[in-house]
């Protein structure tokens, strides 16, 4: 699993690649929270384009960041969801809280 984090305006773009499971979750949580703080971002965009596997541990990282960011008045979005991730994302109920966009630029337009 690898994480690419990039700040654009007020938004932290988080590109997740590989297996987003328990092993990845701890590392991701810490890395994202730290970068939110040091880079002073308000919103988060999760680009899931490279995700090959996700389970409730991975989804938990997204939901946890959502709770944190919205508490501070920020917004969260998801983009580039691969077909194999779509169903579990919907089943989790996350798509009722967090909007899903086809690509990064559409998502960034809404977050701005």
């Amino acid at each position: 699993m690898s994480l690419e984090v990039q700040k654009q305006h007020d938004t932290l773009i988080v590109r997740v690649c590989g297996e987003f499971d328990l092993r990845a979750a701890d590392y991701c949580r810490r890395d994202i929270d730290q970068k939110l703080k040091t880079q002073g971002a308000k919103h988060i965009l999760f680009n899931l384009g490279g995700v090959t596997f996700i389970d409730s541990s991975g989804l938990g990282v997204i939901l946890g960041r959502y709770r944190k960011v919205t508490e501070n008045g920020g917004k969260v979005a998801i983009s580039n969801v691969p077909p194999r991730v779509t169903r579990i994302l919907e089943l989790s109920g996350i798509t009722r809280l967090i909007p899903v966009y086809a690509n990064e630029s559409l998502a960034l337009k809404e977050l701005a």
Partner: protein
Amino acid sequence: MRLRNRMKLEFLSRPENVSLARVAVATFATEVDFNLSDLEEIKVAVSEAVSNAIVHGYEGKPTGTVLLTATLYQNELEIVIEDRGRGIADLARALQPGTSSDPERMGLGFVFMKSFMDEVDVWSEAGQGTRVKLVKTLPGELRAQNLAES
């Protein structure tokens, strides 16, 4: 129910072994030509049960042992995941969707196991450990084929 194949996998309660468990079960299951989405569902269910054993059963301590048994019968794949950890005191409550003893988790593990498998059984006793049985029925065409062969 005739047994066709069986494997047992025992590993330490370390987060990196969740992926080992998934890969082993998926490889074991390829033998029966499950379709890709069935295989994905089996992997998620195994991932949830094994993650629970590590996170809840052994409370994150990496020295516990998790035992996974996969058995291929004529008509179904049965997977049993066991730990000798903390156990679940109130099982009825733990099985409710959205219930988690860990604020960083979603309480969706059992929900996913039930959505993705045809049968989920849980045995647990406080202080004794937990045993989760997951069953996936083979696709209809495969079942018929197996009957013809037997």
